[in-house]
């Protein structure tokens, strides 16, 4: 082995066209790099990642007998692998090739861009540090481990089910953990989906039903992941499954217990708080598994030791109040996180009166009102008086593109507002008047622009402006909306029967806790963070844990499905290997 003071290090400085060279003095960087202990060769290149650039690195490693290499260029998430492969081709172990990012300080549009002299000083320091790090670096021999060919999918919405089914069809054992008592996620509750206007449950049901009977899939509903230990190929997982107080093997989903139950509570999860359910319930008609579940917070027997009426009527003796929380231990080779999103609750947008005015609702609540399985059986009516709304105003970007709440675009709100406008105008209340108040209509996606045009053709009115405030008439409960439309240069006042807020898409509750359990990072908006937003959008900072769907960022169903396919493909790519090569310390430190 080469002694540390004899290690020969090469430094390669990339111009990245003008992205780096346009912002700092490369010559000065080359000269300072030559003086660092251990550095025997320094070269600059216009594009180090190009074929020419990589060849130059390889040639230098061989001709100059370099032991280790530092490339000063761009984000390691982008090209570290490229240069490690390049080093391997020239005979250097990947661990002895390092890529450091000096471009972040010079590239136009980079949030970290600084002035040239400061960028030069920082770049010099970073190169010096990287050279020191790689000079002193040791590697232990790697070990080969046989991967466990089971997968954990966290989240049973459309993304999780897609990834799970992909892998189950390839022969993997798949455990899908869903915290709700049914799989299906948000999609099952959307009534219709754009741009095809298919009924959401109709196109989701084949996936949920197939997952329920697939011999390779184990559905763990009403359950949450408590802990994860280990490493790719060998994760040890603890899942906590809450009691349903129902013997699932006996329950036929007949609903007699529900009829008998005397306790009625607001149904937040499946009716958006606009309907009710019993303390024993089946979430909705197409729930999978279609088994009853007892809500322990409201059940009279669990709370007060009285009642047990459900037990008396159940024809299969499926009620089991002896059930307790169960800990399920799983061994899996990879984990796919598909925990979806929540709709932002716009209470803090006080100007719109949500929570104060009964006829101000959200788009998710509207979807539930339009759904034949929803709280009104598909009859669109106002919450305050059950009257059909004749004039409806939708307000876009509520809590999105807003520095005081969430400054990102939530991606799907324009399209679902159009969808609901089409449904109402085209099918439900054809003589209604619908206004959509928007900042920009963002209809980026296959056939989306056509969908927007066809909504306009139905006679839906579009106003380019965000209303300042809504005032409720205390007698009629109608809502007065004041909005300026700059397109026609007029200040408008609209008296509406119903206002629908298109609210931001936010990370699902529990995302922060799960990020701690899994050791994966969150981005600045709280969604799970990918390794690189362009090139590696499903990998995370933990090898073997992948993300997909709205858990990674706001996205529609087609994009969620594509990303789920990609996550499944990555997991398969790793676990299909007979052996996975890992650093010895990783295996020793974390054997599950």
């Amino acid at each position, binding site marked *: *082995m080469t*002694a*540390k003071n004899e290690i020969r290090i090469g430094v390669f400085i990339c111009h990245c066209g003008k992205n780096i060279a346009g912002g700092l003095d490369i010559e000065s960087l080359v000269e300072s790099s030559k003086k660092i202990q251990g550095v025997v060769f320094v070269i600059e290149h216009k594009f180090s990642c190009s074929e020419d650039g990589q060849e130059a690195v390889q040639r230098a490693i061989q001709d100059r007998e370099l032991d280790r290499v530092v490339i000063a260029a761009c*984000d*390691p*998430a982008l090209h*570290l692998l490229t240069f490690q492969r390049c080093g391997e081709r020239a005979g250097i172990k990947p*661990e002895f090739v390092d890529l450091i990012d000096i471009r972040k300080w010079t590239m136009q549009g980079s949030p970290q861009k600084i002035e040239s002299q400061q960028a030069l000083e920082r770049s010099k320091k970073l190169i010096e*540090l990287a050279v*020191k*790090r790689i000079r*002193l*670096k*040791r*590697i*232990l021999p790697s070990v080969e481990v046989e991967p466990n060919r089971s997968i954990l999918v966290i989240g049973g919405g459309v993304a999780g089910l897609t990834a799970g089914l992909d892998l189950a069809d390839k022969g993997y054992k798949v455990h899908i953990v869903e915290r709700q008592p049914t799989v299906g996620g948000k999609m099952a509750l959307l009534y219709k989906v754009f741009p095809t206007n298919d009924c959401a449950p109709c196109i989701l049901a084949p996936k949920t039903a197939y997952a329920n009977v697939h011999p390779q899939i184990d559905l763990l509903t009403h359950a949450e992941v408590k802990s*994860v230990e280990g*490493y*790719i190929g060998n994760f040890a997982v603890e899942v906590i499954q809450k009691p349903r107080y129902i013997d699932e093997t006996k329950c036929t989903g007949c609903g007699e217990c529900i009829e008998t139950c005397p306790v009625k509570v607001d149904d937040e999860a499946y009716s958006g708080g606009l309907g009710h359910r019993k303390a024993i319930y089946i979430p909705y008609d197409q729930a999978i598994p279609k088994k009853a579940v007892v809500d322990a917070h409201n059940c009279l027997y669990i709370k007060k030791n009285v009642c047990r009426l459900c037990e008396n009527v159940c024809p299969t003796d499926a009620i089991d109040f002896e059930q307790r929380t169960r800990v399920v231990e799983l061994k899996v080779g990879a984990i796919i996180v598909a925990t979806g999103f929540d709709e932002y609750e716009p209470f803090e947008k006080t100007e719109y009166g949500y929570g104060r005015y009964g006829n101000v609702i959200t788009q998710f609540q509207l979807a539930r009102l339009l759904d034949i399985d929803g709280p009104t059986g598909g009859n669109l009516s106002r919450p305050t008086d059950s009257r059909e709304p004749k004039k409806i105003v939708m307000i876009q970007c509520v809590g999105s593109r807003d520095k005081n709440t969430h400054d990102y675009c939530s991606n799907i709100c324009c399209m679902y507002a159009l969808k609901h406008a089409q449904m109402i105008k085209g099918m439900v209340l054809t003589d209604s008047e619908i206004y959509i108040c928007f900042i920009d209509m963002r209809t980026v996606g296959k056939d989306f622009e056509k969908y927007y045009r066809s909504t306009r053709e139905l006679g839906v009115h579009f106003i380019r402006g965000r209303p300042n405030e809504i005032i409720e008439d205390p007698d009629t409960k109608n809502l007065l909306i004041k909005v300026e439309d700059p397109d026609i240069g007029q200040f408008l006042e609209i008296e509406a029967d119903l206002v629908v807020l298109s609210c931001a898409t936010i990370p699902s509750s529990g995302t922060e806790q799960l990020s*701690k359990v*899994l*050791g994966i*990072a*969150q981005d600045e908006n709280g969604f799970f*963070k990918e*390794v690189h937003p362009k090139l590696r959008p499903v990998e*995370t*900072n*933990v*090898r073997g844990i992948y993300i997909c769907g709205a858990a990674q960022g706001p996205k529609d169903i087609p994009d969620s499905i594509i990303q789920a396919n990609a996550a499944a493909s990555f997991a398969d790519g790793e676990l299909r290997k007979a052996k996975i090569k*890992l*650093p010895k*310390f*990783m295996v020793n*430190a*974390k054997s599950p």
Partner: protein
Amino acid sequence: MEEVYIEEFMSPGCVGCPAVKEMLEELSVEFKDKLIVEEVDITVDTTRATQYGIMSVPALVINGILKFVDVPDKEELKKAILEEMDSE
């Protein structure tokens, strides 16, 4: 005595990280320029943590080898540094 390079993996919300930082500051005074400490925020640089298979912070990588996950015992950390200083 050889120099030792420590990569201190941390994140802004990490409970144990300040304790590790303080420990390393004290050891830096003791070992002077022989100890190089680099703080790596895993929420900013996710790639580096992936290379070492780090799933939680604080974590310490000494001369390229993941030695400690969670807050280490100061004496054990010192011992690990000394071992590296004496290695070839």
